[in-house]
């Protein structure tokens, strides 16, 4: 039980970042897709830039994990069809609901209970993918 507490605390910090950074705002997502603000690009861009340095330090073994082992970030499945087609479907939903999977849950904490309909849809979508994935191009 104790080993889970730190992940709960990290989740709390994540929820605060998402809320205070206005990353849970439907309007910020719309504004991003209209290219009318730098905010979201700044957040994603600075995270990727700083993240790239971190990943380099992981790869070189300069930063090790709490167990003293090298941190290995697994390579993504190299199949362009799934990345592109799945990505487009995801993007349609991201723009419509104005939230990606993290912010969806943070919005519950913000008292936006109608987001539960979106979450139900997302669970249904995940289920349908699992059910029909053998028939989809990957």
């Amino acid at each position, binding site marked *: 039980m104790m080993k889970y507490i730190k992940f709960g605390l990290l989740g709390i910090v994540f*929820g*605060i970042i998402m809320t205070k950074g206005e990353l849970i705002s439907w309007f910020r997502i719309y504004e991003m897709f209209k290219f009318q603000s730098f905010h979201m690009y700044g957040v994603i861009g*600075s995270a990727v830039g700083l993240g790239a340095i971190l990943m380099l330090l992981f790869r070189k073994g300069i930063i090790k994990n709490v167990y003293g082992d090298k941190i290995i970030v697994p390579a993504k499945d190299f199949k362009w069809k799934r990345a592109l087609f799945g990505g487009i479907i995801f993007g349609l939903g991201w723009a419509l609901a*104005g939230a990606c999977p993290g912010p969806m*849950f*943070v919005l519950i904490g913000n008292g936006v209970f109608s987001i539960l309909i979106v979450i139900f849809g997302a669970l249904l979508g995940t289920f349908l993918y699992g059910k029909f994935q053998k028939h989809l191009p990957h």
Partner: protein
Amino acid sequence: MIEIISQPWQWYVAGPSIVAVMFLLYFFGKSFGVSSNLETLCTMGGAGRFSDYFKKDWKVNLWNIVFLMGAVIGGFIASNYLSVDLPINLNPQTISDLSVLGFENAGDTVVPSELFGMEAIGSVKGIGLLLMGGLCIGFGARWAGGCTSGHAIVGMSNLQIPSLIAVVGFFTGGIIMTWVLFPLIF
């Protein structure tokens, strides 16, 4: 201290803060990817009875579900105790574009009442749109193999070509929805 935190966070605070959370997850031997929780929740709910895809041991992903529950609590803490930064500082052009579509008072709330309000979710169209949005997110995230966290942040940081393709897909879908479909829907 609390006054500083209570300000709206600029991008150069929010972006590096996300990386700090990501770092700690890897430091503790885990990974950063939110949408895989949707899969875990399906597995916990018994989806394995309908598809072998969900016949997995969900207990190994329990830490991530705890992280997700923490995110709900974090949202509660931020909105109740760290001040609410509304209305947000949107581009005036965004506000007028939304007004043309029928969205009033853009940025005064976290989500538009035209989509998430009681009146909207009381209509078939309103519920349908939210369900459809969620459905695309869940289906697309699993098909693509990740979402904004796993592909856009971790994957691109780790120089993964599939993640770059996925992010191009995210923006292609998002631009089609915003520029082409929104004027037809609203």
